[in-house]
């Protein structure tokens, strides 16, 4: 009889996560307000009077002291109101909610690609008996690890957008397609509704940025998993399984893989948060309408409310990723199950 899934949840870490989130909110709030550069100054029309400026400042609460500002902000935040974007004149929550699904779909696709590539190559390389295969993979991997996601992104733009113009290099969907879905999760919904023409179109926009994000992660997964699989293959239980007549493929898939995935997952979790951070640049390169792209605009425009909202969004996402990774440890390693 299996233990309840609740045993997988790391309750203590959850509490720690909430505290961290609060800490992030405070620190970012303070940092952004002791900053040189005045967002109000960017918004005013030439010839505005001092009174107008003061009024504008007051309307954004920027005339109060920092602790007071924070309390006001916190009060609103807890009800889901993160204020209005200074540069875009829209509700911050609305802006983020509009674009977050696109980024989520992109990063999940990238994660999937990275896992398939990384785990697949690692398993294949341990199955091959020839030493040349393993050595070549190691060398190629070493080089792969050094190439950052934005270099891949730009390379893809050149190769598959211009040299061989087979893929679109900006946006998320073809503007000529009429899409009236219920949610902003365009890819997901198109699959559910079996609108495969839309699925195809969205994928053609997403595949390059997703691949650019996936390759560095795949390289890390390959490196760690390959090493771990080699270590596990030398363990007694693996040898015993071979002696029982299991083929090398079976031994890898049924015995060593689950043990080798434990250290791999730890690193993948950290790297995945980096992948999420990478969306900032990759989305920009592909003009993909996600929160990464939004973040750059916000920073360039010194849009404080928007920046604050985005920091919290990213912070929350990172925390959730870390929690998920910790929970998965319980799944893989029976010795770590809580309760």
């Amino acid at each position, binding site marked *: 009889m299996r233990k309840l899934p609740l045993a997988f949840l790391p309750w203590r870490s959850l509490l720690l996560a909430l505290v961290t989130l609060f800490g992030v909110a405070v620190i970012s709030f303070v940092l952004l307000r002791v900053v040189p550069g005045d967002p109000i100054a960017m918004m005013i029309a030439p010839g505005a009077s001092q009174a107008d400026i003061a009024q504008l400042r007051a309307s954004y609460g920027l005339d109060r002291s920092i602790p007071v500002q924070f309390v006001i902000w916190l009060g609103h935040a807890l009800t889901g109101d993160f204020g209005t974007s200074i540069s875009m004149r829209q509700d911050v929550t609305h802006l983020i909610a509009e674009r977050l699904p696109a980024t989520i779909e992109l990063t999940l696709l990238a994660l999937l690609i990275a896992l398939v590539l990384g785990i697949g190559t690692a398993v294949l390389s341990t199955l091959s008996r020839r030493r040349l295969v393993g050595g070549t993979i190691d060398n190629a991997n070493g080089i792969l690890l050094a*190439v950052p996601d*934005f270099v891949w992104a730009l390379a893809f733009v050149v190769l598959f957008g211009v040299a061989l113009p087979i893929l679109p290099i900006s946006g998320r969907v073809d503007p000529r397609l009429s899409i009236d879905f219920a949610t902003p999760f365009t890819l997901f919904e198109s699959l559910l509704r079996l609108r495969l023409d839309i699925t195809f179109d969205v994928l053609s926009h997403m595949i390059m940025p997703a691949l650019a994000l996936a390759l560095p992660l795949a390289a890390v997964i390959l490196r*760690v998993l390959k090493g771990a699989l080699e270590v596990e293959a030398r363990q007694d239980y693996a040898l015993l399984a071979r002696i029982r007549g299991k083929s090398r493929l079976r031994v890898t898939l049924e015995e060593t893989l689950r043990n080798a995935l434990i250290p791999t997952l730890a690193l993948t979790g950290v790297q995945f948060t*980096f992948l999420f951070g990478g969306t900032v640049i990759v989305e920009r390169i592909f003009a993909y309408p996600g929160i990464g792209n939004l973040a750059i605009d916000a920073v360039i425009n010194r849009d404080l409310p928007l920046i604050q909202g985005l920091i919290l969004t990213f912070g929350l996402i990172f925390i959730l990723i870390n929690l998920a990774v910790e929970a998965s440890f319980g799944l893989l390693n029976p010795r770590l199950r809580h309760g």
Partner: protein
Amino acid sequence: MVERALPEAAVMATPLAEPAIARRRFAGLLAVFREPRVVFAGGFLLVLLLAAIFAPLVAPHDPLEQDLMLNTLPPAWSADAEPGYVLGTDSLGRDVLSRLIYGTRVAFTVAIVAALAAGLIGTLLGLLSGYFGGWVDAVVSRLIDIWMAFPPVLLSILLVAVIGTGVTSVILAIVVIDWTRFCRVVRSETLQQAKMEYVDAAVTLGTGRGKILLKEVLPNVLPVVVVLLSLEMGIAVIVEAVLSFVGLSVSSDTPTWGGMIAEGRQIIYQAWWVLVFPLVLLTATVLAFNQLGDGVRRLTDPVLRR
């Protein structure tokens, strides 16, 4: 316990063995030439460095000189090329090759200064916390844990937005974010070294603790630091490129590879060369720093020596 290993910890720790117990110092500088990686990567980087230093002599044109009559010229081997503009021109008629050469200045300035600064701070803190332990170690370790929770690119953009644009800000951002890379590794190295017998021997001889740190531990930790420096320079180049791509680095007059890439992205269909050449040079430089670090590591890790 969730183990938060840095990517380069994975790179350095698997599948190759941990650094061996005893470390011999370089058998003279000539030993460097035994490793092909060091020779080729180092040579390439040296050429770039020289190009950066002697840019006014090497570059065929003034990188800031605009000539709208000659804009978006293709590279020399194409049909519509103009002589004298080997790699073509951008949308304002500026010579791509010259801008590339001058862009090397920003890249290398940032790379060297940022890497050295981050290395200095990180190594110092790593040495102190690894050797003296106690509350120093506890504080530093906690700091590292918190620091490592944030993705570097995101943080650097945020920091530069806060601090303001310019080369100094970029360098500062890199240092603030990446000192932990050095600190972590140096700390663990120091911990290992501190347990060695020669340290005990020095203590019994009455040498002061600070002196031991400087004369015994540091030289053995140095090879690792050199490897990390090379790695860090590669990272610094990338971060600078990203920041200038986004427009948060130096002022838009100064040519940077990232800036050229940004412009090239806009006119990618009309003038692919404006993006491709800086991209290729950037990638080659980063790979070179990486291979250089890898080569140095192979030279100094006794376990790997054939």
